[in-house]
């Protein structure tokens, strides 16, 4: 039983600890994974090799500070070393940007790990979250060219959700409300546009906040395709720029294009517009897409010739929006850069736990990626989300202290 000595005020779910021997084994496993000798690990944490050897065999206990130092050196979490059982495996798909960065996916996964860890913590403190919405029933994407599969799947999603042919407003919220998944928009390594992680029956889609809103939307739709088609396992990485794209990536891109810009809606948006560039701009503005994505989709639908499409993509969004729309349209798209949007479900539960005094400010700051802790605390207080300060009852304290006092 966890916390055996006190009457617990919070509904903490019991979590069992490993034995001394198991702890030593986990430390040894983590060390071997880094290909370090016991001596190398010992040097990094200021112990001698014999101490590390005895820790790994369970013959020596590990103090809390030593354990923190060992965990930091080994780049593992103290919690993962201590709790019994294995964490469920992650299934992942990632969408990479234009340049290669071998460690980018690992760095992006740290954010996923933070969110998953917070979710687990909140579940232990608040109990299970309300049931997730059931995924709409969708058919298989079927056989045939990948692009055709993506188009069919997008049509099924639009139909199942009753979305018609119009633009998708509040896209992250729509997905969170209708699918058992969370959406996080936050800084990711430059090379990673987005990432879809599935763990324990829920999915988490991470979208890099460093890109314009239109690109964030496309990435979100792309990752949704991976989730729906269940091609998250094993680690799947889309490296744009590599000519021979896989079926799954082409399908995900086609899905994203058709989900965000359905054919009937596209045709209606360009009705009466003859100029190719203006057509692409109209579609982009109507559906919250980039001009490049709009040009691609017009090309896919046979509404734009390939050379014209390529010229528009080469030109880029800004000059075309400035010429055929308003500077504010470009600015609005750009304003999405850097805007952090945590998963709504997680934010709601985290603020509830904060208000009840079950967690501190730091997990909220971490969720919102806010460095300005004092300002954040003030905002939460202003919103009525801060816990009551500890209104210490002096009489109760005196009572406890009096109990201690008499001549023990």
């Amino acid at each position, binding site marked *: 039983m966890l916390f055996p000595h006190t009457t617990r005020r919070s509904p*903490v779910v019991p979590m069992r600890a490993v034995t001394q021997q198991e702890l030593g084994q986990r430390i040894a496993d983590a060390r071997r994974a880094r290909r370090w000798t016991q001596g190398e690990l010992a040097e990094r944490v200021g112990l001698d090799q014999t101490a590390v050897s005895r820790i790994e065999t369970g013959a020596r206990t590990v103090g809390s500070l030593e354990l923190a130092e060992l965990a930091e050196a080994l780049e593992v979490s*103290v*919690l993962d070393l201590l709790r019994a059982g294995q964490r469920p495996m992650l299934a992942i798909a990632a969408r990479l940007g234009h340049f290669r960065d071998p460690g980018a996916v690992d760095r992006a996964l740290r954010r996923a790990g*933070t969110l998953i860890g917070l979710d687990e913590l909140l579940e232990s403190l608040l109990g299970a979250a309300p049931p997730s919405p059931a995924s709409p029933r969708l058919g298989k994407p079927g056989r045939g060219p990948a692009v055709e599969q993506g188009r069919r799947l997008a049509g099924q999603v639009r139909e199942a959700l009753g979305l018609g042919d119009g633009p998708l407003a509040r896209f992250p919220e729509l997905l969170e409300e209708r699918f058992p998944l969370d959406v996080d928009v936050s800084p990711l390594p430059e090379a990673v546009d987005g990432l879809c992680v599935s763990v324990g029956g829920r999915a988490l889609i991470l979208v890099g906040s460093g890109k314009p809103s239109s690109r964030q939307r496309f990435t979100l739709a792309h990752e949704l395709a991976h989730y729906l088609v269940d091609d998250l396992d094993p680690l799947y990485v889309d490296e744009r720029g590599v000519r021979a794209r896989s079926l799954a990536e082409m399908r995900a891109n086609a899905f994203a294009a058709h989900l965000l810009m359905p054919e009937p809606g596209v045709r209606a948006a360009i009705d009466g517009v003859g100029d190719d560039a203006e057509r692409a701009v109209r579609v982009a503005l109507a559906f919250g897409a980039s001009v490049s994505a709009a040009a691609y989709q017009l090309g896919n639908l046979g509404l734009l010739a390939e050379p014209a499409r390529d010229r528009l993509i080469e030109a880029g969004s800004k000059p075309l929006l400035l010429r055929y729309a308003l500077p504010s349209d470009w600015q609005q798209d750009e304003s999405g850069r850097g805007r952090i949007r945590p998963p709504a479900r997680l934010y709601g539960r985290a603020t509830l736990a904060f208000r009840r005094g079950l967690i501190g400010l730091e*997990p909220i700051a971490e969720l919102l990626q806010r460095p300005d802790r004092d300002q954040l605390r003030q905002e939460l207080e202003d919103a009525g989300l801060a816990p009551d300060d500890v209104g210490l*009852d002096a009489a109760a304290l005196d*009572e406890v202290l009096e109990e201690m006092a008499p001549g023990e």
Partner: protein
Amino acid sequence: MSCRRLVFDTGPLNSFAVVGRLDLLDAVCAGHATWPLSVQRELRAGIRAQPILAEVLEARFLGPAEVLEHPTDLLEAELLRVRLAGSSLSQRHNRGEAEAIFLARSRRGVFVSEDRDARVLAAAELGSGRVAGTTDLLARAVRLGLVGPEDAWAVYQAMLAAGRRPGRVSRDWFA
């Protein structure tokens, strides 16, 4: 024999030390104080910047620092730490507060801290009668007749002047 204790986080020890009034803590605790090793280490690390903290390490009323090393205790303390520090910061962050709350819970004791979030969390875990701050102990010293209200106010002002953040109270707090 009861094992109830006042379990100290770093802040109050630091505040009383910088104004040279660890004697008040000694008297208020009456032999029932303890501290985790992580708090002792934090204070030791601060000696270079604040040499007066060496007096805390030499204070006999605290007794030997308590070491957590059983995996079950380590896990419980770590779960408390993550609730305060999240998972992105250094794994040493908030360790002192978490271990002191853990010890207060296991000793049916009182958690003593200046950290607002740690005090709120401890109140949720232990009950508000088992959470105290620097100003609470100073007020207790007044009630015990160890120091007069005006002197307590002066001690408090000296803590503020030394850059400590013992919590905001008015002069009436010590009346």
